């Protein structure tokens, strides 16, 4: 779907036309489902979440600002919904909170001394990487999915997770480190 078609479909959906919604559903439902699956970690819950997102779309569209690309906005709405679910699941609102605050930069390594695992992630075995992603702790999986699947910026992620922008950077950084470790462990085992 090119940007003009997308804008037209959105416009029609905002006017309440069924075909507009149908087109949007057709175009984005798979991508929305993908994000839900990465964020919630279970296909079943993801299906429910997708249904909810599209069910609420007619009302949510009132808040949509056409200055933003629609797909970005939709994915952000989706992640909002999924994070709500995760929070409810946890019954603990400070899911992504502040243990990261005091992380000192020394522990993060300097570029002249890159971590030996830095080259572990390679193309071979996309499935392996995906499995490893699913086994990451929730906070890392969520951050990586929001950044690299939802393609949200750090600021957006920060506001969704309710943490500072610096925490987002560290969550993503740590998430990748954990991923490398996990893949290295898997390699050793095989």
């Amino acid at each position: 779907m090119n940007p003009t078609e997308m804008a037209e479909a959105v416009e029609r959906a905002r006017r309440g036309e069924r075909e507009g919604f149908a087109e949007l559903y057709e175009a984005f439902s798979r991508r929305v489902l993908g994000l839900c699956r990465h964020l919630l970690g279970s296909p079943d819950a993801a299906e429910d979440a997708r249904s909810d997102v599209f069910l609420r779309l007619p009302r949510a569209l009132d808040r949509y600002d056409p200055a933003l690309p629609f797909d970005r906005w939709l994915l952000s709405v989706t992640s909002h919904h999924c994070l709500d679910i995760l929070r409810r699941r946890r019954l603990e609102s400070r899911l992504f909170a502040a243990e990261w605050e005091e992380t000192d930069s020394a522990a993060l390594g300097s570029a002249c001394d890159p971590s030996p695992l830095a080259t572990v992630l390679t193309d071979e075995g996309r499935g392996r990487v995906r499995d490893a992603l699913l086994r990451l702790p929730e906070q890392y999986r969520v951050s990586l999915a929001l950044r690299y699947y939802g393609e949200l910026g750090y600021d957006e992620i920060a506001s969704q997770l309710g943490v500072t922008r610096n925490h987002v950077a560290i969550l993503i950084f740590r998430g990748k480190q954990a991923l490398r470790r996990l893949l290295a462990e898997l390699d050793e085992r095989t």
Partner: protein
Amino acid sequence: MTCPTELTCAVYVDGELSPEETRAAERHLAECARCRRLVAVLRHENRVIGAALDERAAPAPGPATAVRPTTIPGGRRAGTRGLALGAAATVAGFAGVTGWVALGDRVAADWIGLVVKAALFVVMNAATIERTLMTVAVVTMAALAFVGGLYLGRSSSRAVVALVLAVAAVVDVGPSPAEALEARSGLEVTVGAAQTVEGTLVAAAETVRIDGTVDGDVIVAAAHVDMRGTVRGDLIVVARTVEVVGTVGGSAYVAAGTLTLRGRVERGLYAADRRILIESGARVGGDLTLTGRSLEIGGRVERGATMFAHEADVSGHIGRDLRFRGGRLEVRASARVDGAVRADVVRASDVTIDVQAAVAGPVLTRVRSRAAGWYGEPRVWFWVATSFFGAALLGWVGLVLAPSLVLDSADAVWRWGASLGWGVATVIGGPIAILLLAVTLVGLPLALILLGLYLLALYAGKIVVGLALGRMLVKPRANPQRDALKALVVGLALLSLAAVLPVVGGPIRVAAACLGAGALVRRLARAAGVVRSAEG
């Protein structure tokens, strides 16, 4: 000059440094080769993570990934094997993706679930099935002994002896019922209202009535099934008419002429019936997957409904998406669908949705027509390619394993009268035999095996006809094996293309399957020595 931290580099790669920081980082990168390398590695990692997350790029963790691109030691033969393995993996991948596209992942999951469940049932109840088979064998043998005794003896006293022996054999060898399993048969099997069956109930009868409670699963083959009580496990039924008024705690699998649901099925309902009626008070707690001629959904389905039907009439409440493929779909005023309606029909006018029906999601109607536009769909050519590759591979395997059988069958295609006769007999007789075996229940594993062979024969039919066609076109040269392979490829390519022609494509496909399967079965039958007696 000190290098930035790895974290800073990672943030830079994500494009999330502030403008000043970005400028500083770029200045440093221009000078420091090590940092440039690090940045390149981090960029690459991001791409890898993005690709791993993006399921559209990698639809299924199929066997293609299982074949590592490593060199296999062991000279040329191993190389060929690797090639064959690679080809097989590719074809399997193709087929997997196509299946995925064609069926949609949910439907596939449902049916796979059903198959797995059936297989599990066979495995878990192997002992029971074996015992039931034993019983049948013993009874048959006893009957034969009795008849044989009568025939040979001609003396009433001997006949009595034979009868006594036969009965003794049954009583002695016949299985005693297992603890957790209750097997009942007769003209009418009834579980009374006050009765409780602990464990699984297996019943075969003209009429089966369950008014009481069954703690385990219920497996029934009958003409009429009337379920008014409670089944805590799954309900598996093959019958002419089935009426469920009570409660099924698990899932229900029903193959019947008519299914009427008035009660509750707490989990999924999977049914293939001529007519299915889910009345307005009924409730299905899980998914609903139905195949039938006419379907009426008046009750409440908590999750999605998937239907393949000639006509479907929905007036109840569907908790998720409503998917339909077939002739005519009508969603009535009282209906409520909490998800989308996806219909796959021949004409857009075949979908009627009352304006008062509450459909929360969009209504997506896909018109399945073979008009000119149909050929523009890449899906179609994907199918053609897949079916061609699959058939060619299987044909090749056949040529390697049983060359004379395959080639003789191909030649037999030209005796088309006899082949077509055998083919039609196979195509019609096969399902009847399978159904008969399945209904007697003891034959369920046999029926499954026969079903597999039946489908294989139909598929092989295409290959045989393709080969026959190719052999007509390709001139034989020195190497017969290579000739046969070439003929196979040429013939199958032609046949695959002919099969998607408008109007005649369908009949061509059916005729090829019939003709080829007939030729194959006839050749097999001749090998078994049946043909001469059958054809005079």
